[in-house]
């Protein structure tokens, strides 16, 4: 491979890297994406596929809504289907505390112009008769949508390539040096060759591994790797259009057009980013199925055919790190999406592209500055115990009861 000289080098070919490449190409920049595996081969290709607006944190909602505007017309721009469907999103409450959360979410959402309907138990069960009476209330947001996550990153990569981007799979970024006002990116390929890429700007879109890249520039992103447990059933006749989501995240499910029901349930599992493979422990599978049957009894008649998870970067305040580096001009971070990078991706990409191309962005990204980790007292407190759990090994010989 000959030496590459570009305006922007992007480390990571997940959906963030590919969307950013596309956005930069549209602004006339020359771009190379360096992906050590396959485009979309990590968390981007395996997500639940939900573009959820309802219940997004108030600080994130403005950016989420900008992202949603992009999603709504993206297929025309890409020239291919990524199975975008505006199915809506339903939060379910199983108790009074949940109900209060629905009401507060609805207030926030409506203040931003979202169409949200609150339903009591009777209305909920009449509207979705497959739910059990454990559900005490629901809130229904109609603008939320889904896409097929497997198609997203490759589609953006193709679109970027059509506009001139170079998308390199199989190149790991080993280290980056600076010289003459440029980044000298040293790659490593499976066959042992070590390509060098020179760029004016560098984007850190390395997902669960972005802290390593940041560290090379003296920056600390307090990142840890985790993955949500996902299950999928055999295809069954359509019964549930919107994404259904118990508001504490203990169970969520959606039915694909093909009929398969995808099931997820927090807490997410801590995973080892170094192994680059993660699995769902069987106990976790059983627990999530038990929770599902409790609220959708008819699911007991069906079978689960596969589980999976992905390796994703989280930070404790569950908000992305998005914007310029605090130490190095020309370096931009777009990482730590903490479970909702698919939804936010298009707006995050535009923000980075505008910063690079125009020096400023109209996207509301101020709260996501990396410097928030250095300041004290402004972190959103969040109980980790509620959101995460270690991968609990099954009790030897025991039942999961």
């Amino acid at each position: 491979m000959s030496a590459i000289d570009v305006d922007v080098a992007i480390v990571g070919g997940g959906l963030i890297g590919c969307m950013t490449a596309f956005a930069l190409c549209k602004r006339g920049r020359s771009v190379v994406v360096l992906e050590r595996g396959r485009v979309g081969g990590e968390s981007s290709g395996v997500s639940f596929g939900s573009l959820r607006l309802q219940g997004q944190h108030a600080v994130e909602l403005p950016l989420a809504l900008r992202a949603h505007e992009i999603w709504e017309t993206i297929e025309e721009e890409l020239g291919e289907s990524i199975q975008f469907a505006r199915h809506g999103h339903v939060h379910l409450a199983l108790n009074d505390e949940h109900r209060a959360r629905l009401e507060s979410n609805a207030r926030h959402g409506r203040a931003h112009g979202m169409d949200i309907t609150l339903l009591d138990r009777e209305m909920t069960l009449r509207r979705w008769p497959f739910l059990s009476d454990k559900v005490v209330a629901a809130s229904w947001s109609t603008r939320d949508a889904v896409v097929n996550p497997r198609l997203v990153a490759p589609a953006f990569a193709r679109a970027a390539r059509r506009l001139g981007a170079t998308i390199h799979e199989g190149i790991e970024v080993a280290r980056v040096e600076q010289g003459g006002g440029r980044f000298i990116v040293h790659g490593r390929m499976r066959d042992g060759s070590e390509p060098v890429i020179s760029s004016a700007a560098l984007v850190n879109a390395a997902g669960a591994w972005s802290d390593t890249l940041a560290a090379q520039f003296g920056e600390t992103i307090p990142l840890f790797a985790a993955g949500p447990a996902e299950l999928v059933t055999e295809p069954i006749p359509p019964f549930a259009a919107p994404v259904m989501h118990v508001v504490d995240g203990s169970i969520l499910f959606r039915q694909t057009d093909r009929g398969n029901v995808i099931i997820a349930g927090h807490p997410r599992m801590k995973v080892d980013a170094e192994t680059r493979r993660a699995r769902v422990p069987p106990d976790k599978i059983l627990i999530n199925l038990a929770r599902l049957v409790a609220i959708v009894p008819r699911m007991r008649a069906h079978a689960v055919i596969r589980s999976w998870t992905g390796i994703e970067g989280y930070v404790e305040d569950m908000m992305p790190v998005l914007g310029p580096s605090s130490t190095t001009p020309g370096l931009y971070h777009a990482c730590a999406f903490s479970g909702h990078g698919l939804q936010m991706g298009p707006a995050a990409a535009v923000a980075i592209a505008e910063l690079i191309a125009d020096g400023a962005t109209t996207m509301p990204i101020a709260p996501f500055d990396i410097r928030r980790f250095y300041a004290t007292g402004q972190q959103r407190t969040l109980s980790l115990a509620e959101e995460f759990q270690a991968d609990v090994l099954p009790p030897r010989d025991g039942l999961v009861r």
Partner: protein
Amino acid sequence: MARVVVIGAGPAGIAAAEVLSRASVEVAVIDEAPRAGGQYHRAPAPGLALDMRRLLGTGYAAYETFHNDAASVCSRVDYRPGTLAWGVHGGAVHLASRGAAKALGYDALVLATGATDRIMPVPGWTLPGVFTLGGAQALLKDQGCLIGRRVVVCGSSPLLYLAAVQYLRAGGEIAAVIDTTRFADKLRALPDMLAAPRVLRDGLHHMAALKRRGVRIIHGATIDAFEGEERVGAVVCTPPNRMPLRIACDAVAYGHGLRPETQLAELAGCALRFDAAQRTHVPETDLDGRAGQGVYVAGDGGTIGGGQAAAVSGRLAAAAALSDLGATTNDVDLEAGRRMLQRLRRFQRGLATAFRWPGERAGQLDDAVILCRCENVTMGEVRAAIALEDGAAEVNRIKAATRCGMGRCQGRFCGPGLAEVAAISAQHPGSERDRLRVQAPIKPLPIALAEDVVP
């Protein structure tokens, strides 16, 4: 006491359990089927008056010995028939049995999970009336059922001749045996096959018996299509240097040998490697079957080797597990076992030549042919996905783009065909290949199973 869990009650699993049951370890034998036997020694359902002696002919003695041994072994161990092992994690196997989920911890795990049919898609292979070769045999041995009145047995497998003979014995009519491997390849394989003269002799015997009964045997033909509207009515094939032939039938038994069931090994953390001779991925093991920390693989689940090799490898795996656990056994003559296994493996290598997997066919099939029957994905859709990837695609990427391998069988049946399409597109050297990755559950898991789990 240390616990050894054996998965599979076929020749490999029972042989392993037999050795283990004499040592001072606790032994559990898990099998999805209601009766011991695996595929090879499958026994009829209770109450079915099937004359196995007549059906199996000279094979009956081995069958009878196996079942006597199995009955005695199973009475000495914690034998759990009708139990699916659907996951392995953290030193325990996860089981589903009679609507309940259980976990069983192990100190050593012997995986004797056997094999399933390997299929190369052809036009019409999903028509009703088309069965896999192993499936057709299973129906016969388990239920006493024939798949049709006039059956074409085809593909490339030593089981072609055995299945055809058994069908005749059971009163079926064989319209033809179509062997897709050329006779010249069979001759080329002869030196290796002489490593197991008895098995070779049995095979030749079956061929001769078929000829005597006037069954038409076609060598080296290409299977063009299975034809029919509502169900299969004919097989169209082209013998070497001849015009295509159309053979009427009402059922087809079809297969290209076997594919090891490696899912549990993968979940248990074993490394898999592409085996160029068998043209499939197999767990990496030493000769005794050590496949990782506390994990052992025996029988066809490791390397397709047939019933006899399976039993030998089962004994070796048990001895290896015992020795690694610090227990001893004098029941196994390791050196003799290893020698025999090597001899049988050489024979199997011969079989892989004599009954070739026609991988190149994947490149010739029409776009309309269904590759993945669970998700109804055609060759054309797969090729289009490959084209989008600049003409070279990896199997998991194709799966993500097309759903091929995403259905109920999780790629167990479309996987081999998909691997060939991908290999052809990527011009893989044949040694290094990607494969569809496995996650639990390895087979569909009824959700009702979780009902009494406390969330």
